[in-house]
């Protein structure tokens, strides 16, 4: 019997040694959108710096925000909120200041992406990638030209063939656009109208997915999807019958940003990582792989022509006229959330 107890003690002791040893390693906990950072980039970073990267993913800003709040900004070293969540989280003191002295590569950024309204002097955020929200259509199954804007999604012929993202701002924003309002409208009456409009579309939706909508498109489970440009790019690359439509109601643009949560344990490694991602060749690689646009000016010349000139990733200027950035909703956020929760429960 003693032998068993001894074995047990040894096992426990061994466990005790393994766990702190892991924690003592140089690690970096990155919390990022799914399908948003190529494995290769992470591997290269680890090879170069010896910092081990642990990647955890989320599928919506709301999920990320709930988790960061719950943990009090502890545990993660990098998060990648969209613009409107940057201002929100900064206001709630959930983000650590960015030490620009540690980011020499910051100069690579395009001036138009610096000091944007959601974070006036880039005190808490560094733009990571930007893109648009639009509609992907499988023209094998739906005639080209039939869908030109969000309003066309209500066409009964599409019932049961639609995919929408599992994302509050995109869904309600789309309905607001159809009604002719801004995607950042804060008027409760308008939001309610948008909610009702979105709700009338819900029975026609087959899947809600913001993780990987391209899968359902490619497997022909759905024929029309509202999605982010990068997903559309990959789907189009795989099957050129799948085209990307810029909705005629106006395009939504968004910027996702690298931020460091307030109580991040590895702020130094986090800065090293951000600086690494700002390298022109790295930024170019990410843009090429993920199909989103980089705000990194120095990276542009390094991109292959077919990426740089791809209208899905880098839309020509005329496509972006009248485009809007999503901004923080302030106190209207709560109203959005209430309607969103009702939409999700389908009532």
């Amino acid at each position: 019997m003693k032998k068993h107890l001894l074995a047990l003690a040894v096992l426990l002791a061994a466990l005790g040694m393994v766990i702190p040893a892991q924690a003592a390693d140089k690690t970096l906990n990155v919390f990022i959108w799914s399908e948003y950072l190529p494995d290769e980039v992470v591997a290269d970073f680890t090879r170069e710096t010896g910092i081990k990267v642990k990647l955890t993913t989320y599928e919506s800003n709301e999920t990320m925000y709930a988790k960061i709040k719950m943990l009090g900004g502890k545990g993660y070293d990098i998060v990648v909120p969209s613009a409107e969540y940057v201002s929100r989280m900064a206001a709630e003191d959930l983000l650590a200041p960015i030490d620009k002295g540690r980011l020499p590569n910051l100069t690579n950024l395009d001036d138009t992406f610096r000091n944007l309204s959601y974070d006036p002097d880039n005190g808490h955020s560094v733009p990571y990638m930007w893109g648009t929200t639009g509609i992907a259509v499988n023209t094998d199954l739906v005639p080209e030209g039939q869908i030109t804007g969000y309003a066309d999604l209500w066409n009964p012929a599409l019932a049961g063939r639609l995919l929408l993202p599992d994302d509050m701002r995109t869904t309600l924003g789309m309905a607001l656009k159809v009604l002719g309002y801004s995607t950042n409208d804060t008027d409760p009456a308008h939001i309610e109208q948008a909610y009702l409009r979105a709700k009338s579309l819900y029975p026609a939706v087959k899947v809600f997915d913001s993780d990987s909508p391209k899968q359902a498109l490619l497997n022909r489970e759905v024929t029309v999807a509202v999605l982010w440009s990068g997903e559309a790019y990959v789907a189009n690359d795989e099957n050129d019958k799948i085209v990307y439509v810029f909705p005629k109601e106006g395009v939504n643009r968004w910027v996702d940003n690298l931020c460091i949560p307030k109580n991040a344990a590895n702020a130094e490694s986090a800065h090293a990582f951000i600086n690494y991602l700002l390298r022109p060749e790295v930024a170019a690689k990410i843009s090429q792989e993920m199909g989103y646009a980089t705000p990194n000016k120095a990276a542009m010349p390094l991109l292959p022509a077919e990426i740089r000139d791809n209208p899905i990733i880098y839309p020509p200027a005329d496509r972006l006229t009248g485009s809007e950035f999503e901004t923080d909703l302030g106190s209207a956020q709560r109203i959005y959330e209430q309607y969103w929760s009702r939409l999700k429960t389908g009532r």
Partner: protein
Amino acid sequence: MKDRSLFKALAVTLTVGWLAVFVIVPNLLTLATGFLTRGEPEFVLPVLTFDNYARLFDPAFFDIFLDSVWLALCTTVLCLLVGYPFAYILARLTPARRRLGLLFVIIPFWTNSLIRTYALIAILNVNGLFNAALLWLGIVSEPVELLYTNTAVFIGFTYTLLPFMILPLYASIEKLDHRLIEAARDLGAGSFQTFFRVGLPLTLPGIIAGSMLVFLPALSMFYVPDILGGAKSLLVGNFIRNQFLVARDWPFGAAASVLLTVVMGLLLYVYWLCHKRVRRAEPA
């Protein structure tokens, strides 16, 4: 004697203490949170309210609950209908075959249930095996839409939970004293009568145990609707998860989970009643 009390004190303190801290306290905490108010910067404000429990009967939630119970119930019934004859046949095989047969029921149960759920995608999608078979057999001319429907969720639950039904059923059928069945037959009971008057009542504990093991997870396994239902067939499990991890409404989520605990309590009570009856009926 002092030594006995020392060992006893250690064993009792450790076990009772552990369960008190990690079972009793969290459950009371959930119950209490249900009476508090949702807060903005913090998650919960210490303001007493009955709102959250009242909201459970609001159609917005109650319909979800009913849908969920209905789906779980259908799953349980199907598992029972498929599992009972299966367990019965299995329990009557030769011991060596029985062992092997049981082993092959248990193997998928030991494979992560996520993987089993995921495996169903390959079968159920438009180009999947199921549709290919239907088309080939000429039963349908157009592929049937299965993936991302409630039917897919139903199939997913049945598939992942069937072993949980078979195992307790098997245990109670195997224990069944075959002489009782024979006695019933000798006394002139038909096989129908024998089953409903003797076999069924005696295996009732197994039926209820299996039903609970299927019904309760079917209420809470949120990943099955996520993967197979296109994230839109919202069940209680998904609802509670969303309250905690998306909507940040802890009190409401807590209230909803208390409701699940109440359902569990009721089922346990039924089980206990049946168990008592069967024990009394069994020959000593």
